[in-house]
């Protein structure tokens, strides 16, 4: 189980994952040795899965991001598995989420521009198996995206 010290370290670490070990220890009010030990423990227990670099797709020339909300034909027993398997092979899909609710799945698709998006949509998305319905939502802006937990 985590104690208050662990939570304090996590809170600062998730707020700024680029902090060096010394700065993180100082902010959390613990010695560097304690901080390192606690982080090792949380990594070993799987609480901390990874510290990942986040790509700025816009900086790499991908200007368009579209959310595709997809309903599947559930009369097909293997619809979910086969759809997800095929969606994983589309390189422009950066996220696959499944839901309980009005929609079954959401794909996050990136493209260089609208023409490129049209091409991906027609050749790689509409050809995915078992689609009953698709709705497209265009991203305008990310207002908050830290995805931090309220620890």
């Amino acid at each position, binding site marked *: 189980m985590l104690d208050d010290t662990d939570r304090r370290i996590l809170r600062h670490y998730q707020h700024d994952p680029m902090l060096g070990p010394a700065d993180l220890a100082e902010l959390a009010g613990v010695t560097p040795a304690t901080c390192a030990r606690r982080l090792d423990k949380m990594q070993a227990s799987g609480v901390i899965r990874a510290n990942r670099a986040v790509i700025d797709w816009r900086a790499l020339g991908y200007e368009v991001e579209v959310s595709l909300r997809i309903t599947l034909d559930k009369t097909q027993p293997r619809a979910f598995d086969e759809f997800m398997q095929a969606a994983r092979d589309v390189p422009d899909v950066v996220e696959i989420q499944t839901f309980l609710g009005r929609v079954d799945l959401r794909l996050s698709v990136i493209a260089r521009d609208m023409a490129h998006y049209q091409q991906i949509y027609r050749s790689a998305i509409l050809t995915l198996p078992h689609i009953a319905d698709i709705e*497209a939502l265009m991203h*305008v802006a990310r207002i908050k995206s830290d995805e931090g937990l309220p620890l």
Partner: protein
Amino acid sequence: MIELDTTDRLILRALTQDATISASALGRKLGLSQPATWRRIRRLYDSGAIKGQRLDLDHEKLGFGVTVFLGVKLATKGRVSLEDFERVVSAIPEVQSVEHILGLFDYRLRVVARDISDFERVLRRRIMMLPGVGDVEANVLLSEERRPGPIG
């Protein structure tokens, strides 16, 4: 726009798995020297190809068992400014992300909660109290995969 060669792409992909890997360990994997790898990593950060880092935490182990995506439509456009809505919604700790979208809704919120009754509390006391909030659609997240994207 930043041009990347094959080696840059391999480095970028490795850093999205583990941004804390040392330049020498990464260089060994790719058959590059430590200084050459370090220079390429620096360039990815300095050019803005990498915009930051994200701590990937196990939500369940931390007691957050439920993630819900909310599609929110504003009811009274013009009466409430988008800035006001965005400022207030961003300040809710359980709201992990806020995206302005075009289509069926105005905003997409990612909300994390301990369980369904905790989610109900957040929805009733926080989300439904937001200025100008209209229709809200909820979808409970069952699984999530982040894919490497077109750098592979």
